[in-house]
């Protein structure tokens, strides 16, 4: 009986260590490494990659002066966004002093759109997703480089806590699947590290482009949990934390994923 209890204690402390252990930097792998060869081939071929339609749609929106607007995005950022700084795109999500919080790439785009007199659109409106996909694709191949020091440090700690909390009827945390079990199979799917470098990505499962926040919401739904709402503090913190885990990976937008 005593040894039985000891056994349980030892086992649980061991698992505790495993479950909270950090992902060491040199182990970071893109979702690309976990998908099937056919999916990789689809992603790599611009004519086969269904995400490229969204990139093109975003480019059109970027270059045109929309109804009511005084300018087009391209008036400041160059036709086809050629004047954009890809290094700063790779910094997103960023910390904003004035808002004292996290600003996503889509939010920055949305703010810019509003400043030139466009009709404001709700978060994750297809036009905003298209613009986000296009802008992120401009930085294709650039290294993800999210700020982790200064005011971000504390936000990242909060994000990590959310990442390690259990949710929903499945009652698992993100870290269970994406830090403990990458490479293992669940429901016939190979689990990846849940990295953000490929997003917005085209999802074969639902036949749509989704950005990172939407992908997080989809995982929460899969966990039979109440997904964090768009624009909620939780989803921003979680999105930030996921993207910081992707530091060092190359931007692959639009990736093709399950």
């Amino acid at each position, binding site marked *: 009986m005593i040894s039985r209890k000891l056994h349980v*204690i030892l086992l649980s402390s061991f698992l505790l260590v495993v479950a909270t252990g950090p992902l060491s930097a040199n182990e970071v792998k893109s979702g690309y490494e976990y998908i099937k060869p056919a999916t990789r081939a689809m992603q790599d071929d611009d004519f086969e990659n269904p995400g490229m339609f969204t990139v093109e749609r975003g480019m059109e929106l970027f270059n045109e002066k929309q109804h009511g607007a005084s300018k087009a995005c391209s008036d400041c950022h160059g036709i086809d966004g050629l004047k954009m700084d890809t290094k700063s795109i790779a910094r997103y999500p960023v910390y904003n002093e004035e808002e004292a919080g996290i600003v996503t790439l889509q939010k920055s785009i949305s703010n810019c759109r509003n400043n030139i007199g466009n009709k404001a659109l709700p978060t994750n409106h297809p036009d905003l997703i298209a613009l986000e996909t296009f802008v992120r694709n401009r930085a294709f191949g650039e290294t993800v480089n999210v700020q982790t020091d200064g005011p971000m440090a504390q936000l990242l700690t909060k994000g990590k806590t959310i990442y390690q909390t259990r949710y929903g009827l499945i009652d698992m945390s993100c870290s269970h699947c994406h830090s403990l079990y990458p490479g293992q*199979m*669940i429901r016939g799917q190979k689990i990846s590290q849940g990295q953000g470098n490929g997003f917005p990505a085209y999802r074969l499962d639902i036949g749509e482009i989704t950005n990172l926040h939407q992908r997080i919401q989809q995982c929460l739904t899969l966990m039979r*949990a*109440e997904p964090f709402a768009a624009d909620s503090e939780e989803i921003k913190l979680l999105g930030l934390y996921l993207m910081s885990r992707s530091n060092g990976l190359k931007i692959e937008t639009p990736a093709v994923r399950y």
Partner: protein
Amino acid sequence: MFIRACKIIFLLAVLVPILGLADDTAALPENYCSWEVVDYAIEKPLCGLGGDAQRGKKIVSDGHLGNCLACPQLPIDGIEAYGTIGPSLDGIASRFTEPQIRVRIVDTRNINPMSIMPGFYRDPRLINRPGKPYRGKTFLTAQQVEDVIAYLVTLK
């Protein structure tokens, strides 16, 4: 003294994660039968129900019900075992008694607080942020849990 300390550590290990996640806003469903863990086992069948092994086998392989195949490997012909996270359930009944199997299906965190396996008859008040359609519900019904157990005890 040592045993006492062990007991306290063990209790802490079990209780801290549970208390930390408790969402006591949801009420217990009316038909929820409570259960008790003694010596790492649940002796009595849930609500005193008897299980049916044939039904249990179906529940275990159904992605919408037990969804067991999402994780552990099961010896079911014609179904490709498609999860590699959990242990193989082959021969499970020669390793555990029925009451020991019951606690592992009902809420295995009574055995291992860090387990990733969902509690299929976990107290719904302990579930953090359940989706709207699942509020106040258990993963499986008491009958389904007993059916699953009836099937698992055949895996000698």
